[in-house]
């Protein structure tokens, strides 16, 4: 080994050791929010926070199927009982009335502080008259039985008002004492975890606890099955899936490529040496991400599979093409590899500024990996080749292909026709080309999404599209603003603009409001006089209502309610879902329900006006779905812009190196054509393009540029003797790339399958087009 060889090997060994140490100590994550965009505006940050950690993210819907209704109810009750004693869960609801008694007691005891109808007007003679008449009317309905005993204490029916305030939109159907689905075939439990939605470990423990409780509850009962859904469940399943997939894909990809290379080289030494740049690149890539980003994402590791495909190309070029040229390799082949590597780096670099943390990470990983693999191929590998290093002569493959290529006539015409067809297809599908909804990126399979939607309908979870969002410095002012907004929204219920809304102030009014309600209660003697006058001519005598006077007087002087008074009632979780401590203060949410007259439509203009007038600067109306889609659209156009920038960078790099606009056009045309045809193929197949396909197209250009450059070089080359070998090496390299991306295309992780299904056909087409459009195909000198 030469001196430079020794130095190169030493440097390599030290760097690999350091990188391996970093890799071993790195932090790994599978949190899918890395593939949620970083959000620029405050509204959008709020939205992403809600998606990640809001109450909705902490709900797990559990469904019990099979056997008969009574068995399901028994299992539901047993599971709920077990989970209620588990500290991991903040609340377990399955429709059983346990705990409802405590809620009612709390609401009844504090009704005069909680009820929105408690105003000075309520206690005038006319106000009392109206309220008592209402209550008497209510006695004539089936619900009358529930309130008749309360009449002496609550003739104005405050408890009815208060129960209405906190009961929100509706409840699931019940059978055998527990919640069931609309068709009655499933028993339902809603579990609220303490762990945040983004805490996948915590969610996993919760999911396991539910499985355990179910197994214990069913015991030997046959035919009962458990279904679970919710963001936490998705996160847990996706993580398990990613780990499984990454392992499976890496092994599969490695096995196939090893088999391919063994078949080509017929040399174990060559195989082992050929994998050195790949392994070095993978280690360098992971180390770069660990150092640059802090955590390495599972999907990045999965993506690493593709690096095998591209990095192995370098050693393929070295082994095959150095066969004839010997040391001339450095002068003639290396510059082309270097340029190909640099164009790839340009392409991947455009991922770095991406708003998706996950994509930026893929970019960094690929750049570090490719640079490392190329450097190892250049400075280390040649010194390691044994003196008598030889691989099977693959030039016959090149000769055959070369002859085939020569038979093809009219390639430029075909290219023009093909691009016109692809262009026409894209034009015809221009309206449906892009998936502009965030759900297009969802890592959750369609079947799981369907189950989730079905269970959500079953539990009557409102599909909250609009909510007023209040931000305030402290809890008290958040509640005060929520009350102001509530006052503006109430008339919209009467006007049928909305059906209703939830507010944290329905559960716990601000201290100011509670005091105001206390102050609106007149002293007992005064109230007794007014009551006497109010009930004149009514079927109830004032003397019977003495308990009312006692209760009201107690309310007038009772201590004000605070959050801790809600403890031990189910109201606590309802309240906490709507009022929380956010990043910069307190956030109150007021979700809106559509009017029953038009259940699928809300006119947001009057609501927006009401919300913004009620608390200028402190509240906004958030259109959850609209905002999410806008956010995604922004990132889609960002991705397109970044990709175009990456493409431009590649063109500039080529212009600078090749110093000939014609040659640049010759290199770029087959790549552009490949991208066009792949996009046209997606449109024809009815698959909508997402941000990930855009990235995939960028990769087609990055990977394909290697092929185009070799054909360009060959066209410029004065020594056409290496033509069959060049062709053979390109074919082997291309097969390796297509295999590794092709395997990704079959992944069930959407991020990986979108990239794989774009790049695999794209890389193949890039090679074919590059070959066909090469300026002239010289006649190879066939030996023998």
């Amino acid at each position, binding site marked *: 080994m030469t001196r430079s060889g020794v130095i190169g090997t030493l440097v390599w060994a030290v760097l690999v050791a350091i990188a391996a140490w970093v890799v071993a100590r790195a932090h790994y994550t599978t949190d899918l929010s890395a593939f949620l965009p970083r959000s620029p505006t405050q509204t959008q940050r709020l939205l992403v926070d809600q998606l990640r950690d809001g109450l909705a993210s902490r709900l797990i819907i559990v469904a019990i199927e099979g056997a008969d209704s009574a068995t399901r109810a028994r299992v539901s009750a047993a599971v709920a009982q077990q989970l209620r004693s588990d500290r991991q869960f903040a609340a377990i609801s399955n429709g059983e009335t346990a705990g409802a008694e405590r809620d009612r007691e709390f609401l009844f005891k504090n009704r005069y502080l909680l009820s929105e109808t408690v105003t000075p007007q309520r206690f005038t003679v006319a106000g009392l008259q109206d309220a008592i008449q209402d209550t008497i009317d209510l*006695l*004539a*309905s089936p619900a009358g*039985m529930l309130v008749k005993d309360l009449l*002496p204490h609550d003739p104005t029916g405050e408890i009815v008002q208060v*129960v209405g305030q906190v*009961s929100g939109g509706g409840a699931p159907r019940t059978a055998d004492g527990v919640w069931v689905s609309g068709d009655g075939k499933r028993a339902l439990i809603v579990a609220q975890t303490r762990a945040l939605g983004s805490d996948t470990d915590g969610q996993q423990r919760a999911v396991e606890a539910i499985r355990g409780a179910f197994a214990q509850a069913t015991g030997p009962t046959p035919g009962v099955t458990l279904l679970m859904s919710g963001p936490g469940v998705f996160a847990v399943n996706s993580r398990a899936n990613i780990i499984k997939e990454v392992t499976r894909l890496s092994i599969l990809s490695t096995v196939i490529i090893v088999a391919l290379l063994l078949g080509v080289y017929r040399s174990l030494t060559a195989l082992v040496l050929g994998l050195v740049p790949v392994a070095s690149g993978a280690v360098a890539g992971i180390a770069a991400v660990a150092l640059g980003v802090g955590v390495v994402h599972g999907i990045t590791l999965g993506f690493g599979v593709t690096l095998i495909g591209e990095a192995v190309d370098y050693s393929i070029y070295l082994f095959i093409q150095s066969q004839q040229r010997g040391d001339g390799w450095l002068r003639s082949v290396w510059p082309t590899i270097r340029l190909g590597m640099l164009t790839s780096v340009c392409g991947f670099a455009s991922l770095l500024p991406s708003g998706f943390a996950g994509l930026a990470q893929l970019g960094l990983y690929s750049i570090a990996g490719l640079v490392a693999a190329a450097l190892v191929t250049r400075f280390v590998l040649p010194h390691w080749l044994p003196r008598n290093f030889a691989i099977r002569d693959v030039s016959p493959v090149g000769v055959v292909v070369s002859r085939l290529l020569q038979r093809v006539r009219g390639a430029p015409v075909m290219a023009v026709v093909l691009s016109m067809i692809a262009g026409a297809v894209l034009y015809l599908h221009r309206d449906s080309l892009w998936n502009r909804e965030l759900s297009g990126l969802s890592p959750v399979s369609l079947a799981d999404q369907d189950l989730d939607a079905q269970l959500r309908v079953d539990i009557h979870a409102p599909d909250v599209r609009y909510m007023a969002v209040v931000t305030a410095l402290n809890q008290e002012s958040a509640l005060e603003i929520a009350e102001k907004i509530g006052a503006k929204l109430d008339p919209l219920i009467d006007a049928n603009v909305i059906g209703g809304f939830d507010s944290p102030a329905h559960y716990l009014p601000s201290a100011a409001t509670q005091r105001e309600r206390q102050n609106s209660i007149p002293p007992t003697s005064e109230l007794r006089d007014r009551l006497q006058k109010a009930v004149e001519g009514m079927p109830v005598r004032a003397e019977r209502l003495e308990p009312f006077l006692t209760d009201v007087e107690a309310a007038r002087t009772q201590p004000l309610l605070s959050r801790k008074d809600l403890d031990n009632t189910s109201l606590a979780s309802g309240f906490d879902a709507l009022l929380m401590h956010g990043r910069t203060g307190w956030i109150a949410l007021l979700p809106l329900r559509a009017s029953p007259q038009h259940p699928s439509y809300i006119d947001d203009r009057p609501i927006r006006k009401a919300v913004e007038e009620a608390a200028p600067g402190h509240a906004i109306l958030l259109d959850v779905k609209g905002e999410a889609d806008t956010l995604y659209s922004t990132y889609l156009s960002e991705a397109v812009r970044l990709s175009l920038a990456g493409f431009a960078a590649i063109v500039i790099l080529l212009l600078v190196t090749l110093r000939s606009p014609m040659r640049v056009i010759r290199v770029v045309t087959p790549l552009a054509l490949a991208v066009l045809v792949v996009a046209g193929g997606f449109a024809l197949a009815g698959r909508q393009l997402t941000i990930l396909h855009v990235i995939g197209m960028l990769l087609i250009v990055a990977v394909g540029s290697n092929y185009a450059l070799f054909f360009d070089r060959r066209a410029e080359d004065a020594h056409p003797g290496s033509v069959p070998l060049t062709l053979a090496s390109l074919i082997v390299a291309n097969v390796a790339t297509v295999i590794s991306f092709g395997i990704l295309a079959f992944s069930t992780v959407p991020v990986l399958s979108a990239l794989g299904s774009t790049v695999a056909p794209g890389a193949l087409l890039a090679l074919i087009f590059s070959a066909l459009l090469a300026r002239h195909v010289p006649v190879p000198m066939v030996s023998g």
Partner: protein
Amino acid sequence: MGSKRGLAVILATLAATAHAAASSQDLDQLMALLAQRQHGHVSFTEEHFLAVLDRPVKSSGELFYDAPDRLEKRTLKPKPETLVLQHGVITAQRGHHTYTLNLSDYPQIVPLIDSIRATLAGDRASLEHLFKVTFDGTVEQWTLLLQPSDTAVAKSVKQIRIEGTRDAIHTVEIQQADGDRSLLTIGPEVAQ
């Protein structure tokens, strides 16, 4: 003596069994008749006699029934109110406000609702699940006496008495354990 009394007891038992068998058959026949009815639209008046009030509360309106379990009570006087019972959930609309009551949350009112629902549906199994059912009269002119079989329910409802002719219910009288009582009188079918 002893044997005579024994015989009397046996005879009485036999007679009671025979009677029970006959009434059970009649009850089946009545239930089948009621079950055939898919829709109903009738007027009603209702009076509640409550100890807490000095005078009875009267209300009136219309009842709608769709087999097997949708019941709508549209009260017109004294104050418009609509109650819909479906799938065990009562939705009440008073003024601009809609309230929902999950029947399972209020076991004490389940028998009040289910007595009428199950009778309308001819659902003998449901009725007998909740009540001890005594049939009296003939299918032409019948009385059902329902007594809660659940002791917890019996604490609030003493008995329910439903009278009717063939597949038409005429009155439903509910006696509560505390002495309060209500009488629902059902008018003829409302012409469409």
